Each structure stands twice: as C-alpha cells, then as structure tokens.
C-alpha cells in the first residue's frame, strides 16, 4: 500500500518536472482564408520557482502544415528593449520548420516578461501551423505561459 502511494507520488513529481522540460507548443494554429487573417499571442516567461530560475531567452520556431498553402510568417516582439524579428516557413507540409528566432527582454538582467507573436500569411487561403517555443533559463526551461489574443 505504502509502496503504491510512493509510486504515485513519484509519478506526480516526475510529471511536474517533465512539464518544465518539455517545449511549449501551439500545435494546431489555423489561419482563415482571408489574405489579412492574423493570429496573435502573448507569451510570458517567468521564474516559476520550480528550480529552473529566471528566463535567459525565448526561442521560437514555426512550421506550416498544409502543402501548397500560403507561406506563413511569425513576428516575435520583445517589450524591453523593443525589438521585432520575423521567421518564415516557406514550404508547407514538409515537416521542416523555419529558422529559430532567439530573443530576450532585459528586465533587471533577466529575460522574464512578455513577448508577442503575430502569425500571418502572404496570400488568401487556409493554412495551419505549429509553433514551438521555449523560455530557456541557465538551468533548463523557465516558467512559460501563453494566451491567445486574436484568432482569425
């Protein structure tokens, strides 16, 4: 009995740890047919007191999923200092992602804080996408939250 509870406890502990190790995903993003359709996300990197510490940087890749669909791009914006960069996955459905964007806020020497993703495409037509992102600390993965602001 004690053995079983011990195993359950150990399993729960491992799940908690794994959530910090695993990358964050937006696995099923979907841009509608309008040429101006855009999705918008807010990402927060933070010290979640799990032991990984403060964020040092945010890393992001984009993968578009529909073959012969419109080319998809993602802009990453930091708040402090203000900086915007762009990544593009030009070929949909080939399972090859965009180059990686690496950005960092500078809030009291940490990359904690808010980041913004805008996702859009180069012409009319539906396209689906996946975003992988990590708030990286010196000891692994820092706390990461995502919120969708606009869904088109």
């Amino acid at each position, binding site marked *: 009995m004690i053995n079983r509870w011990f195993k359950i406890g150990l399993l729960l502990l491992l799940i908690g740890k794994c959530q910090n190790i695993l990358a964050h995903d937006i696995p099923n993003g979907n841009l509608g047919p309008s*040429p*101006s*359709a*855009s999705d*918008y996300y807010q990402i927060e990197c933070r010290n979640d007191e799990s032991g990984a510490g403060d964020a040092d940087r945010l890393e992001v890749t984009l993968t578009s999923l529909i073959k012969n669909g419109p*080319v998809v*791009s993602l*802009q990453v*914006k930091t708040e402090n200092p*203000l*900086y*915007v*960069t*762009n*990544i*593009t*996955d*030009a070929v949909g459905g080939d399972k090859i992602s*965009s*180059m990686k*964007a690496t950005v960092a806020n500078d809030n009291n020497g940490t990359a904690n804080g808010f980041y913004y993703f*805008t996702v*859009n*495409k*180069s*012409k009319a037509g539906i396209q689906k996408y996946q975003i992988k992102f990590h708030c990286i600390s010196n000891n692994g993965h820092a706390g990461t939250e995502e919120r969708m*602001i*606009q869904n088109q």
Partner: protein
Amino acid sequence: MNNSQTTACLLLLSSSLSFWQVGFAADSGAQSLGETLGSTDYFKVSCLGNENGDTDHLNFKVIDNSFSDTNDIPPQVLNAHVFKDNVEIGTLTASSGANDEVALAVGNGKYKLVVDTVGTNTVLKSAQKYTFDFQCKNSEGVITKPSGFKNGSVKSIKNGKIAKYTLKCASNSKVFPQETTNLTLQLINQSSVPIEQWVRYLPVLNAQVTKGRKTLNTSDLAGDSNYSNSIDLQNGNGDYYISVNHTAINNSPNNSKNYSIQYSCMNGASPPLETNTGLLEILQDQ
C-alpha cells in the same frame, strides 16, 4: 450670383473637399529593408480626432518597389564559342533580347561552334531561344559558300546544356575572288525576360498593423505598380504599430526590399473621412 447659386457653389466646394479628404493618405516615402533573414522595420503612427470626429480605424497599404524594370533582373545569357582545329578563335555572349557579333579573319575550312549557358541566371528556368546569322565572305565582302547552319532557324537550349554545330566555309566559283577570307557570326538571343518567374522567386513583402489586441496583415509582390490590398485596423484613437518584413528563408542580396507605405487615420463615416494622422515614427530600421 444669387443665394441659391451661392449655396449650390458652396455645397459643390465642400463635397469636393470631402472627396479630397477621403482620397488623401500619408506616405512614408522610400523605405528599405535589409537582406538579412528576419529583417523587420517597425513604425508607430498616432491617430487622434479632429473636426471629422474620433478615429475609427487606420487604413493601410504597402507597395514593393524592389524592381522597376527588367534591367534589375540578373539576366539569362547564351555564349557561343568558335573553334578552329580545337583552338578557340572567337566568343560571343548575348543576354535575353540582345545580339553579339564577331568577325574572324579566317579562310575556307570547318569551324566548330559550341553554345552554352555559362553565367546565366539559374533561378530562371525557361529554355532560351536563339539563332545565328552566319556568313563566309571573300576579300571583297562578297559571300562565298557558307554551310552548316541555316540562318534564322530558331534553336532552344536549357540551362546547363550545350549545343554543337559544324560550320563550313568553302570557295564559290561564281564570285571573284573565290576563296573565303573572313567569317562573320551574329548570335541573336530571341528570349524574352521571364519576369513572372523572377517575381515568384523573390521573397514576398509583408506588413502588419497592430494596436491593442488587434492585428492584420497585407502583402505585396514586386514587379508591378500596384499596392497591396488595403487593410483597415479598427481600434480608435491612439498608437498604431506597423511592422514590415519579407519571407526570405535563404541568404541572398535579392532579399532586400525597397518599399513605401500609405496610411490614414479615418473616422467611421460612410465614406470615411480622415481624422488626425500623426507623423510616422521609426522605431526599428533594418
């Protein structure tokens, strides 16, 4: 002028001004975006109210001015090499729509002609069409007896391929002197520039407008004088943020963009009238 005429005149004048206000847009002037992957320019425009009321939306469009004519496209080229006894004695090079000519002081005999596409723009995949004007002449400039290529017959060659011909100059008993003393060869590249192929190869210019919790995107291709689709981001008075970037995924000098944007803060009337469009502030310039 009586009162009704004055009224009609004023109405006409005010409607003309209104039309002018609907058509007016601020313009960024020429801007440029670098070739580095991820390059992004970032701007801010402040919209306020005026006598036309509060801002309802920012109207926005962008144009990619990266190339204005076919001279901006790295050309397709053809080369023709003339050999006598395996020694190269002349070379011609002609890009799309152009000619090149050579006159060689040679006599009767066989000449090998080799055509290739070395140095061509390999992004452009269309086969090139060409022909020759080939003459053997005596010392008086009179044609002797050329053979081996039918002048004006149109040939085609794909990138990376070669074509070979054997030209021959012989004496002509019907002219004096009979012997050949020179050979003239004109390479005529009859290809047109495949502009559409080049435009499809170039990265697309994207521009996003964001304010608060709203964002929209518009895109433009190079190679024409048309702006992108116009977008209206509806979020009232305040600061609108514009980012401009390209879809390049490989390093190339052809990634860089020349562009301009037009933008207006508009009210919610139908048709909309311009409110107070602030100056364009550059926040990031890449």
